[in-house]
């Protein structure tokens, strides 16, 4: 399973494995929408074991970061791998990462 879920109270962590390509970005969106329906207050997308993110993946993260923020809730990336950190830095999206969980590149 490329996406697994860990729940702790109303905090959810989605662990993504492998390439966050277009197909996996669609799956991630489905998982996030399910958690939003369950009234998750905090969603963290753990990318420690993901080695690539495409624009579709960034788009999903950005779209639901905004939607959650508008409801005073949280969606952020946590523990990005070096490759993910590098891509988010390069493209100007490093603020999607939880402060303090950045990877050293």
């Amino acid at each position, binding site marked *: 399973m490329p996406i697994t879920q860990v729940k702790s109270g109303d905090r959810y962590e989605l662990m993504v494995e492998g390439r966050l390509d277009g197909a996996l970005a669609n799956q991630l969106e489905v998982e996030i929408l399910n958690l939003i329906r369950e009234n998750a207050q905090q969603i963290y997308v753990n990318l420690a074991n993901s080695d690539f993110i495409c624009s579709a993946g960034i788009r999903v993260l950005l779209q639901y970061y905004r939607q959650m923020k508008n409801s005073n809730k949280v969606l952020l990336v946590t523990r990005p791998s070096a490759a993910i950190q590098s*891509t988010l830095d390069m493209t100007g999206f490093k603020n999607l990462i939880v402060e303090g969980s950045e990877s050293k590149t």
Partner: protein
Amino acid sequence: MEFEFQSHPAELARIPEILDALGRRQPLGPKTRLALDTALTEHLTNIITYGCREGAPHAIRVQLTFDPPCVKARVIDDGPPFNPLEHPPVDTSLPLDQKPLGGLGIHMIRSSMDELTYRRENDRNILVMRKRLA
């Protein structure tokens, strides 16, 4: 090295293996490989998503060469004219709440490559991308 891709999203899964093949010719370094992976994935995604002519088979050629101090990727497709370089740059200084959702793919191509050139020739789009070897 030259590779042919069909215009189907499943073909994008081949990009890591072609980069492996390139890396066997000459080591790429992780940052160079990631940059090429990003640019090729985004550009081929755009071609496959927006460049297909209805009902016609559609082939995309990717040529990868070492051209010191760079590695060069040339992507040739027979879709409608499309110059990604004409797309306005994304303002990366905008806060997350104001960043546009569209144009991210082209933005990622621009961000990851050191040089991009485009031309239209014989009814084909030709995008050449260069990345300095790390």
